[in-house]
């Protein structure tokens, strides 16, 4: 199988504390990979390694390789800014900018100068909102503040904002944890549709959600990648005792 991203022998340190130990995981192209595990197991840290968001934390230090299309993203020649246009991110709490709906989506294209004329920008905004399944709901009120949208709409707006810069991989850090079941279902449906164009990695505490949206599931436990398999297989016949204990609710 060809991997869109391939993580090899990844070790992550926060100061003296090691957060990830020898993680090896391939992310198949145009598939959704779910990362599950108890709190503090390193799954979110792992996610942040994939677009170097750990660079914000000064004491974070990474060893090993993270390959994107065969190129190590931690190589000194790699520009973090252009990396993040290829690997976008959606966060736990919907966090639109305190600006208009339009400006939220247009922000990425603006800072990366992805358009020449205003009408081109309009097209990018519309296309992204359509893809995020939000266009019908907001097309008449693009100049309104994004903060007035509901939580679920805000999260889909954040997804639209992320895909506006044409990423290849989208990282999602518990994108539905602040949403009600209907809004969650909409986002899950969206994730399934986005799989046609994007490789998706999603961190979730909701095992059913991992089972529903992903094709591959990886179980992390205290900094180690315990088991990563096809989702159906992992949820019916996990190989490792710890995985079995965690997903059946016998953990700890």
């Amino acid at each position: 199988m060809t991997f869109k991203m391939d993580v090899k022998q990844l070790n992550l340190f926060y100061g003296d504390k090691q957060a990830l130990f020898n993680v090896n995981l391939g992310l198949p192209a145009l598939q959704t990979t779910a990362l599950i595990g108890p709190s503090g197991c390193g799954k979110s840290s792992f996610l942040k390694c994939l677009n170097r968001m750990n660079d914000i934390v000064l004491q974070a230090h990474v060893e090993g390789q993270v390959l994107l299309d065969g190129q190590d993203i931690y190589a000194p020649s790699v520009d973090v800014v252009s990396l993040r246009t290829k690997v976008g991110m959606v966060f736990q709490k919907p966090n639109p900018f305190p600006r208009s709906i339009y400006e939220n989506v247009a922000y990425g294209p603006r800072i990366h100068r992805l358009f020449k004329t205003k009408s081109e920008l309009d097209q990018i905004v519309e296309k992204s909102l359509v893809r995020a399944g939000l266009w019908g709901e907001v097309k008449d009120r693009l100049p309104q503040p994004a903060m007035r949208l509901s939580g679920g709409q805000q999260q889909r707006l954040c997804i639209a904002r992320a895909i506006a810069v044409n990423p290849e991989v989208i990282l999602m850090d518990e994108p539905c944890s602040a949403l009600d079941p209907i809004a969650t279902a909409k986002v899950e449906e969206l994730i399934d549709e986005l799989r046609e164009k994007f490789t998706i990695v999603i961190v979730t505490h909701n095992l059913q959600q991992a089972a529903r949206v992903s094709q591959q599931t990886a179980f992390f436990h205290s900094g180690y990648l315990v088991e990563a398999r096809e989702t159906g297989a992992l949820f019916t016949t996990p190989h490792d005792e710890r995985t079995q204990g965690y997903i059946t609710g016998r953990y700890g």
Partner: protein
Amino acid sequence: MNNHIVKAYDDELKALHSLIRHMGELTFEQISKATQSIIECDAVLAREVIDRDHEINLLETKVDDLAIRILALRQPVASDLRTVVAALKISNQVERIADYATNIAKFALILKDMPLFPEVKGLSTLVQIPMRMIKDALKAFELSDLNLALQVWHMDREVDVLYQAYLHKIFSEMIEDPKNVGPCTQLLFAAKNIERIGDQSQNIAEAVYTMITGKPFKESDNVKNEPKI
């Protein structure tokens, strides 16, 4: 295996197991009584067996209800999911076995009006292994005992051999004296039902195999490495 963090979940799974165990014990008794009623021409016992069948049907719906409830409320995964699914299958198969016992009891009611026939004793030998099979299959389910399940699976061959032998005996009786054709046909049906009990028990063993390993049972994988009995 550890207990669940949610105790009620454990309790529900235990209840599921105990319902199946209860169903198994009852069915075991039914088979034994049905066979006895045929051999001893005991119409009262046969009627008792027929009357008690609905108890087992009731238990089956109870198992189904509880399993569906667990699926809906606990959304089990991995071994829990496989256990619940196996319970659903097994309850269905045990209910079928109980139906076979009822059938045997019904033949007893027909046979009691016919002349006594010596070969009827052969049924008690024939029923021994299927009874052991259902007992062991359910034990394998309860204890998640893969080896025991495989043993049960292989026992069915012996049942087939004994069944064939019994058929030959009955056939030769029928050829010897055409008067025997009436009761012999009934015995033939009863023997067929007993043989089906063995088949169903083998199915239970396959369900237990799938539950434990997570793989569908394949005959080719398991014929060669027959476990020691």
